[in-house]
């Protein structure tokens, strides 16, 4: 019995060496990602993790390319914006779907109409903002929105076009698991929980991609994902955890890539009249009491950059003149004394513990800094599935959250996070403290139909400065850093995108 076991074991080990020796072909890639796909329906998941898969099987009318996320044409060759409500798209000719069906205006109309069906879409907001979709000819489509949406085109890299005929004919369950798009890759096999295999679409309208075969392995557990890379089972790994970063870097076989992330982490603070923190002096004191440099060094292990505002530099509305208040606990105490809170007060800091890099640790650090100036912070950290519903209810006092806007336009973010809550108009849906400032609302509403880029940029920058410096709507902390690692000698040319999507047609081989 035992000797048989031994023989079996030796046999297994030899097999192991044999298979490991078969080097992968150069044009194939195994990628270990941190989040599994939820479905293969391009409109059913609006998270970047989900869109990251879809961007390989589908194309939008427009796309964002490369490390700077520039908006360029995709299925639409060009577009016009003749008046505030109208967007006209001239479609690319000669494009076919993976099943051979030609792409035309019918597919665009079908896909945009599908957005407002709650059974299959998480882009309800985009779908419902559309008033009408008119087919002018086979390759021209005109979309009219109900209200002016200056950032409408900026969002179109996320809205993927499906094949009308096959989507209508297939069983709804099949549509959820088999993507038929125009994208650079076709799905070969999706084994849930194990892998997604795709192969190059040789007829792709941009030309066939360099990497011919891709296997994406979602591994949620970060240490296992790290083991997959180090053991050579994966070529690229996304989401290197900061606590493993030094270890990954020390490995001679592995190359680490980091890039500033678009997402900023910040603290939202309410201003209900009567609360101590409605007083601007108290808000300033809380801002000045937090030692952000130390948070970056100790909690983020250096993988973050300080933020003075919510949007990141490429976003319209980012204002380079806004500076962080200095770390000054003495000054903070003085301000609290002036405001009449020499003995401090109590406040509850809510936050997620499974959403952002080191989120819980950051919240703990903030609580400690505030305790040093006499503010008693009650920590209330919980899973994101419980935290986010609380944010959308709007009854929190003080919470940690992260944000970035896929449209590269600050307008939509401000309406969602800072405008006074107004369910009828759909404003302030994620204004979790029910913060309210009439002047801010007024400035924001004035930008709603501002389309001229220069004018819009100026207005949003002013608004941003007002919110961050005069009102301290939020206490900004830092921008995260996206960390990737890959095998050094595989000859992979990989530049991460700002939105963290893994778009394999952008990856090359040396």
């Amino acid at each position, binding site marked *: *019995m035992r000797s048989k076991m031994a023989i079996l074991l030796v046999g*297994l*080990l030899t*097999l*192991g*060496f044999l*298979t*490991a020796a078969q080097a992968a072909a150069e044009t194939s890639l195994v990628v270990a990602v941190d989040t*599994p796909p*939820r*479905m293969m*329906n391009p409109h*059913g998941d*609006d*998270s970047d993790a989900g869109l990251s898969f879809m961007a390989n099987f589908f194309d939008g009318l427009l796309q964002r390319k490369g490390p700077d996320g520039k908006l360029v044409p995709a299925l639409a060759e060009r577009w016009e914006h003749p008046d505030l409500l109208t967007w006209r798209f001239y479609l690319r000719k000669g494009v076919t779907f993976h099943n051979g069906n030609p792409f035309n205006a019918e597919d665009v109309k079908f896909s945009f109409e599908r957005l407002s069906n*709650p*059974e*299959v*879409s*998480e*882009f*309800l*907001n*985009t779908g*419902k903002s559309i008033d009408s979709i008119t087919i002018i000819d086979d390759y021209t489509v005109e979309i009219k929105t109900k209200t002016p949406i200056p950032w409408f085109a900026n969002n179109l890299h996320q809205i993927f076009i499906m094949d009308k005929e096959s989507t209508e004919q297939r069983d709804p*369950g099949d549509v*959820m*698991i088999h993507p038929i798009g125009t994208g650079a890759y076709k799905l070969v096999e999706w*084994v*849930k*929980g*194990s*892998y997604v295999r795709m192969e190059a679409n040789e007829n792709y309208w941009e030309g066939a991609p360099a990497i011919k075969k891709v296997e994406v*392995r*979602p*591994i*949620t*557990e970060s*240490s*296992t*994902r790290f*083991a*997959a890379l180090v*053991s*050579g*089972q994966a070529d690229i790994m996304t989401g290197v955890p900061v606590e493993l970063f030094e270890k990954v870097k020390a490995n001679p076989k592995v190359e680490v890539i980091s890039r500033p992330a678009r997402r900023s982490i910040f603290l939202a603070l309410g201003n209900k009249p009567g609360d101590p923190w409605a007083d601007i002096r108290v808000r300033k004191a809380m801002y000045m009491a937090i030692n952000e440099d130390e948070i970056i060094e100790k909690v983020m292990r250096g993988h973050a950059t300080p933020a003075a505002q919510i949007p990141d530099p490429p976003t319209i509305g980012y204002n380079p003149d806004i500076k962080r208040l200095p770390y000054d606990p003495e000054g903070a105490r003085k301000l609290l004394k002036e405001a009449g809170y020499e003995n401090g007060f109590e406040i509850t800091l809510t936050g997620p513990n*499974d959403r952002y890099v080191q989120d819980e640790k950051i919240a703990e650090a903030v609580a400690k800094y505030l305790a040093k100036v006499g503010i008693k912070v009650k920590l209330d950290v919980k*899973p994101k*599935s*419980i935290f*986010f*519903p609380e944010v*959308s209810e709007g009854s929190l006092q003080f919470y940690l959250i992260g944000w970035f806007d896929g449209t590269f336009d600050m307008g*939509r973010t401000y309406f*969602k996070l800072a405008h006074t809550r107004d*369910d*009828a*108009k*759909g404003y302030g*849906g994620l204004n979790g403290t029910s913060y309210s400032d009439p002047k801010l609302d007024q400035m924001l509403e004035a930008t709603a139909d501002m389309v001229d880029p220069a004018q819009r940029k100026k207005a949003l920058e002013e608004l941003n400065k007002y919110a961050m410096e005069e009102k301290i709507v939020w206490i900004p902390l830092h921008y995260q850093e996206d960390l990737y690692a890959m095998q050094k000698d595989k000859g992979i040319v990989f530049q991460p995108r700002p939105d963290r999507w893994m778009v394999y047609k952008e990856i090359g081989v040396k």
Partner: protein
Amino acid sequence: MTTYILRRLIQGVVVLLAVSMICFIIFRYLGDPVLTMAGKYATQQEIEEVRRAFGLDQPTHVQYGRFIWNALHGNFGKSYVSRVPALGLILERFPATFELAFTAMLIALTLGVGLGVLVSLNPSSWPSRLVMAGSLGGISIPTFLTGVLLIMIFGVYMGILPPFGRGETVQIGFWRTGLLTADGLKHLVLPATTLAMYQLAVLLRLTRAGMREVLAEEYIKTAWAKGLPPGKVIVKHALRNVLIPVVTMAGLQFGELIAFSIVTETIFQWPGMGNLLLQSIYETDQPVIVTYIMLAAFLIITINMVVDILYAVLNPKIRYD
């Protein structure tokens, strides 16, 4: 006997109803699935529309009634996250979990019973003491630690065994198996060992205790005195009598391994049901969670009942009235 089985069946149904009701109420408070389903930028009105579309605006008891009614017709609802039937989603993962649990049980049974017998024969020798000390470790070291350690040693430093996933699999009908390819077997070694560790230690200690008790019995002394070969005495006369509690234990453990191998599956990224359950909890995918727990309860109740009935079959002295 028939009355007994009937009574157990009724009890089982009551337990299932209770489990489903508790699940339903608890997961009300787990978070609001509608928020994700409506999308990041949805307005309050759009969120309410989604709530209505999925019938989540109705009072809990109405939703529960509808769930039970549909479940009786074999329909456990659609996953909120992937929007396909929940039961299919879980059953698709069943082969992976079953193969992992089965292999782990096989390892635990053979090594546990084998070592248990060896240890009981020579309890004071130093290898026996070492094995017993090791078994204490098996019971007390948590699964996630064993798993991570094994990955670090065999997957990363030595690089001889793959640290995650199922490897190459073959689809036979509805069953996707990893047992037929070398790569699949290789991938099974680490997670199965991790999962087996605790069960192995328990079975080992159970076997040893039973063996030591039986070996002191008069009839074993008689057997030795008759000059029977050691193999016959140990296996036929002693071990056989020890096996009844061991097999019972193993049966119960097997049900638990299938239902709750969540930790091991997560560490090794094993595409089984436990992995799906954890992911569903993170994403507030209520239909999948409730269906899974119902299924697990059903499985454990069934195994319990079979074991109870087997008792009566194995030992006619046991009567159920």
